[in-house]
């Protein structure tokens, strides 16, 4: 009966549309035409002139959209969303030494930031000490340099771990950083079950994009599962992974690829954990995600809504999670660094605003807004303040957070959400097929045969071609350009940082109990060789001031290192 009514209604609408096309649209088109610009999203999804109820007739409100806080969570994971609590404003920051970063953090907290997020320098990200020859010239440049627990003591000086949550963008040495954070908590007397924060700890996406790679894929996944196993027992409020699409997108993927590959990676981790015997309902609450917010406003919103719905279905229906809490996809968003232009940098404030609005309309749990000077250097204090203020203006002045998922029911947004989901599933099925039924094996296979890298790099080249040919307009870059002299202040990292950091490292090494370090590293070697969990020995090593380079060194010796095949 209801179906019959719906059919009739759609029939009536279709008739009306045909009438409109004939009598209203056609004559107008003949006279005025339309703009010659690609009417398609950045994923290449063709955008129709106008959407109407027929486009979403196959979508069932209760089944596919529903209410926030309920399966399939299309509208948000919490029943009150931002009416209850605003998203966490978490600016990614760090540079120079631990002292420099501690000062910047305190400035941001004073300005109203509500969580911390740590940028590490490349040597730390790659698991190298500051005195390593490969680290020369890079110490403290794009993030803070961390060699030993001593650096963490300075980094968190005056920052109470029971009140502030901290996110760490770290991958190969994630276990070491989690151990350091735990050690600092122990020193501050904060019970481990009160520690809150996130380690990125997502190696699969490093192989697809980003490229901060030390160990081969399989041992990398093994250590991630070690972290899950240890973290569930020891730091139950900590996000043990942030499954990240952000970098996949920055490497040039489309929104659909970002969505599909991130979810496939997430499935791979859950599969690996369950193979170890970890209860999916115990792990799920400690999983989190990280997405990019790019320029195409509606496509981004649709991506976030589709991601949440897909993950809920996957956790419930594929992995059999029973606790509704396990079906939640919580995610952090960062506005797209790759969209920022060096030309007319103030325009970036506008780009970031649009992207941040998409993140909020998409229902993120935390947000980083990029600073307008980032195509030139690390953010200056002024630039990062504007970026944070952008979030605060959206939060307190725009009214966007006052009602939950206000774009639900929009013919276009619901159609696009559905479309994104369908296209992402197609990729996931292709990956599953590569793994003969296992998404984990499919992802590993896809890394090995260059599938991910090729897909992303083709998308990047296609986009660049469109920009070169002027079919995609970037304001201030290939249209509306001006002759300009750069007028914004640029943050410079003091070249003295490297020397000071190496001095501190030497001092720590001279003062620590070297016998204890040796014993802990031996314990680590044994654990790695015998397929035991590496977290306990890493924590022991960290507490004895073993260096990041020493700990990673043991893992490299046991598991070997990995160099990515060259695919242009």
């Amino acid at each position, binding site marked *: 009966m209801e179906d019959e009514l719906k059919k009739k209604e759609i029939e009536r609408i279709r008739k009306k549309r045909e009438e409109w096309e004939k009598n209203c649209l056609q004559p107008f088109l003949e006279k005025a035409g339309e703009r010659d610009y690609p009417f398609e999203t950045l994923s290449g999804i063709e955008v129709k002139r106008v959407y109407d109820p027929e486009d979403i007739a196959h979508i069932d409100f209760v089944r596919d959209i529903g209410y926030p806080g309920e399966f399939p969570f299309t509208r948000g994971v919490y029943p009150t969303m931002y009416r209850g609590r605003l998203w966490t404003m978490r600016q990614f920051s760090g540079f120079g030494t631990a002292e420099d970063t501690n000062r910047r953090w305190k400035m941001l907290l004073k300005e109203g930031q509500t969580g911390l997020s740590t940028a590490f320098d490349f040597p730390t990200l790659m698991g190298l000490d500051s005195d390593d020859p*490969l680290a020369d010239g*890079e110490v403290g440049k*794009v993030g803070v340099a961390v060699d030993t627990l001593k650096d963490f003591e300075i980094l968190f000086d005056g920052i109470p771990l029971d009140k502030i949550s901290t996110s760490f963008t770290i991958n190969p040495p994630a276990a070491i950083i989690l151990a350091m954070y735990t050690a600092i908590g122990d020193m501050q007397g904060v019970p481990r079950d009160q520690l809150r924060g996130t380690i990125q700890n997502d190696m699969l996406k490093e192989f697809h994009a980003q490229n901060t790679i030390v160990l081969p894929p399989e041992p990398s996944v093994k250590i991630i599962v070690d972290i899950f196993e240890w973290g569930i027992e020891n730091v139950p409020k900590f996000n043990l992974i942030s499954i990240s699409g952000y970098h996949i997108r*920055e490497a040039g993927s489309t929104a659909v690829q970002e969505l599909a590959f991130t979810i496939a990676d997430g499935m791979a981790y859950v599969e690996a954990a369950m193979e170890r015997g970890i209860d999916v309902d115990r792990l799920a609450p400690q999983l989190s995600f990280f997405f990019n917010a790019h320029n195409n406003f509606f496509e981004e919103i649709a991506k976030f809504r589709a991601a949440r719905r897909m993950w809920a279905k996957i956790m419930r229906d594929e992995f059999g999670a029973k606790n509704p809490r396990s079906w939640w996809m919580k995610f952090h968003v960062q506005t797209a660094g790759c969209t920022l232009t060096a030309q007319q940098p103030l325009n970036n404030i506008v780009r970031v605003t649009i992207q941040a609005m998409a993140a909020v309309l998409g229902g993120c749990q935390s947000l980083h807004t990029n600073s307008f000077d980032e*195509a*030139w250097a690390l953010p200056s204090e002024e630039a990062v303040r504007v970026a944070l203020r952008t979030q605060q203006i959206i939060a307190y002045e725009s009214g966007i957070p006052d009602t939950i998922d206000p774009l639900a029911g929009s013919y276009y947004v619901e159609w696009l959400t559905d479309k994104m989901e369908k296209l992402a599933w197609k990729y996931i099925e292709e990956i599953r097929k590569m793994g003969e039924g296992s998404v984990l094996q499919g992802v590993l296979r896809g890394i090995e045969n260059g599938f991910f890298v090729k897909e992303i790099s083709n998308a990047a080249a296609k986009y660049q071609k469109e920009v070169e040919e002027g079919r995609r307009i970037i304001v201030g870059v290939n249209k509306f350009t001006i002759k300009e002299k750069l007028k914004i202040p*640029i943050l410079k990292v003091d070249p003295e940082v490297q020397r000071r950091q190496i001095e501190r490292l030497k001092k720590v090494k001279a003062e620590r109990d070297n016998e204890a370090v040796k014993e802990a590293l031996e314990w680590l070697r044994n654990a790695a060789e015998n397929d035991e969990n590496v977290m306990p020995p890493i924590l022991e090593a960290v507490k004895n001031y073993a260096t990041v380079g020493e700990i990673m060194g043991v893992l490299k010796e046991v598991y070997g290192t990995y160099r990515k095949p060259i695919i242009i």
Partner: protein
Amino acid sequence: MERPIKVLVAKVGLDGHDRGAKVVARFLRDAGFEVVYTGLHRTPQEVAMAAVQEDVDVVGISIHSGAHKELVPKVIKYIKEFGGNPEEMVILVGGIIPEDDFEELKKAGVDGIFIPGTPIQEIIDFIKKAVAEKRKAVAKK
């Protein structure tokens, strides 16, 4: 017939941002250049060695980590040490390079600096012109 222009696209340092390097490499190849890409995480020595061994006309160094002032002059120094002549090569740098640093890089021997947003055609034209000039200078000697 004149031999095709040979370009080494190099990533030096620890950053993994290779989208720009790879996109540029593809477009240069499509423009008829012979392109060699080093892959990621190369030391200045490795890049210099590749430039000398491959006998390239152009060395394009992509760098996003802010370490350009330290690493780029080292590449040039090692090219000399390994028996190449960096003055006969066109040395280019691309990536996140603050304008304040342009002068210093040029003094160190860099011929062109390209920041994000540069049309690739501009890079292609620059290379053609610069290589022609360098080849002419070498022929005169």
